[in-house]
């Protein structure tokens, strides 16, 4: 009986030792990381300079339709008469008829401003993030159309499933506080 008792206390002693050891380990981890922590979480953003408009944003996102949408930076739009983001290459007539439009869902819409200029806006409800317009705009225009992760739609997955397949490796983890725009 006596032997059993000492056996028990030995086990308890070792358990207690490990308990303290693990507590120390966890504590030192938290403390050491705490002082180097990034204040807020990260969000995923696309670097437009690296984006090759491969079209995977439209299909690889866990959401359908994708959380990536086309965004128009109006400040650098050239208001081209022949908008290569809007018109199908070799379009017969420069009208808003579907066969002349590049966008497969009609999400890039134009509004008459004054002759001969139109203002191009993206209807986000329709945009699927395929990047066809972005490609056209970047090839021949100013590149005012670009693809970006829309943070109101994005689920902020720990590992972005588009980032994993992004051909240009353009997806970047960005601190959330820095992910807002100056003109927002």
């Amino acid at each position, binding site marked *: 009986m006596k032997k059993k008792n000492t056996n028990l206390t030995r086990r308890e002693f070792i358990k207690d030792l490990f308990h303290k050891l693990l507590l120390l380990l966890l504590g030192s981890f938290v403390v050491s990381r705490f002082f180097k922590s990034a204040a807020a*979480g990260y969000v995923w953003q696309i670097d437009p300079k690296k984006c090759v408009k491969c079209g995977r944003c439209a299909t690889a996102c866990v959401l359908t339709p994708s959380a990536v949408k086309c*965004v128009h930076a109006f400040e650098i739009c050239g208001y081209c008469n022949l908008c290569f983001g809007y018109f199908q290459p070799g379009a017969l007539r420069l009208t808003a008829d579907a066969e002349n439009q590049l966008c497969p869902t009609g999400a890039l819409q134009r509004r008459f401003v004054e002759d001969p200029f139109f203002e191009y806006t993206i209807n986000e409800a329709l945009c699927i993030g395929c990047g066809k317009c972005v490609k056209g705009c970047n090839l021949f225009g100013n590149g005012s159309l670009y693809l970006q992760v829309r943070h109101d739609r994005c689920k902020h997955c720990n*590992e972005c499933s588009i980032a994993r397949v992004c051909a240009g490796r353009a997806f970047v983890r960005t601190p959330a506080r820095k992910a807002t725009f100056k003109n927002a």
Partner: protein
Amino acid sequence: MRKFRLLVLILVLAAPGWPAVATAAEERFPAPEFETQYEIPTPAHPHPRQDFFEYLDIAVLLAALGLAAFFAIKKRSRLGLFSLTFFSILYFGFFRHGCICPVGALQNVIFSFSGDYLLPLGVILFFALPLLFALFFGRVFCASVCPLGALQEAVIYKPIRLPQPIKHVLGLIPYLYLGLAVLFASTGSGFVICRFDPFVGFYRLSATPFMLLLGLGLLLTGIFIARPYCRFFCPYGVLLGIFSFFAKKHLSITPKECIHCRLCENACPVDAINPPSPRLYKTSKAQQIKHFGIFLAFVPLILATSGFGFSRLTDVLARQDRMVSLAERIHQEETNVATGNTLDSDAFRQEQTRVEDLYRQAARIRHKFYIGLWVFGLFFGLVISLKIIVLMQRPGRTDYTPDRFHCISCGRCMEYCPVQSDGSVTET
């Protein structure tokens, strides 16, 4: 600290393009001068989630863990734990969409050691708090806070007991999964746990067909084999198990003293109740010590075999890394082994990085995999050895007690115990 943060933010931000960058870009066609009163519009940029929610999440996690510990140990209420489960499904699941969960945070922690990725405060605490609670109260996180576990908890209907050998073999998978996740996170190749998270798709209400089927399959299995993901896959469960094993307090089956009525024997859905040890063993103590000694002599052999075996997987696993597979593809194209370009190789050539640099980077990653796999193999060999040593032991238990490593503190067994808190026994 603030200065340091700022510096790192700038470093991290060096690459991404902002509208500021975009405006600085060369404009082929300047904007026309409008004759009408037209004003160039400013695009709307939705903000990411507010910081406030980050802190709210931490507060809710802390509260939920505290409540779970209270229900499991002080109140001994299965109903409380079960209600909390539904709260977790709603809050951590559907409201928060699952990310970042403590299970996945494990990879962020590993990743932060190897790159210039800084752990956000939320991730640090989401990783550490459940472990801290496990170290004091057992796996109360698993009981009713984890959104992955909560979903499986809700479908347990007729749990069966798996044969012991199957249980022990399947129980090794989490160690492999943990090792794999650590390997991929430390080489910067990706977050395996998040990629193959079977349940987060339900919370996002959107998933790939494969992950949806996997999730549904696990839930269907979970009707009969309770919590299949938690027991046979969850890598975080390994850490929680270790911390819980050395816990100060733990859920107990009986409120007073065990009367060996055996009513709780089949109560545990995850087979985590240790029965009293048999009084007599086939072998004597001396023989047992001898067997133990013989086994110890074999341990180095197990470690070496495992380490060597795992290191053979270097090429297969390293190819899962994007840079390595890209380098391979480029090499094949350069040497005319493969014809045609892929989107990725095209994109690489547009970047105008030197091919040698890519090869060098790929070789570096491959070497990391090689070293990592040796460590992984040694670790797994150690796990197997320890598992056998534990199975050889004669713990000398006298009562029915929860297996502190595997018990998820769900509290079902408490209802089976006829002993009341004042020591009296209810007749049934």
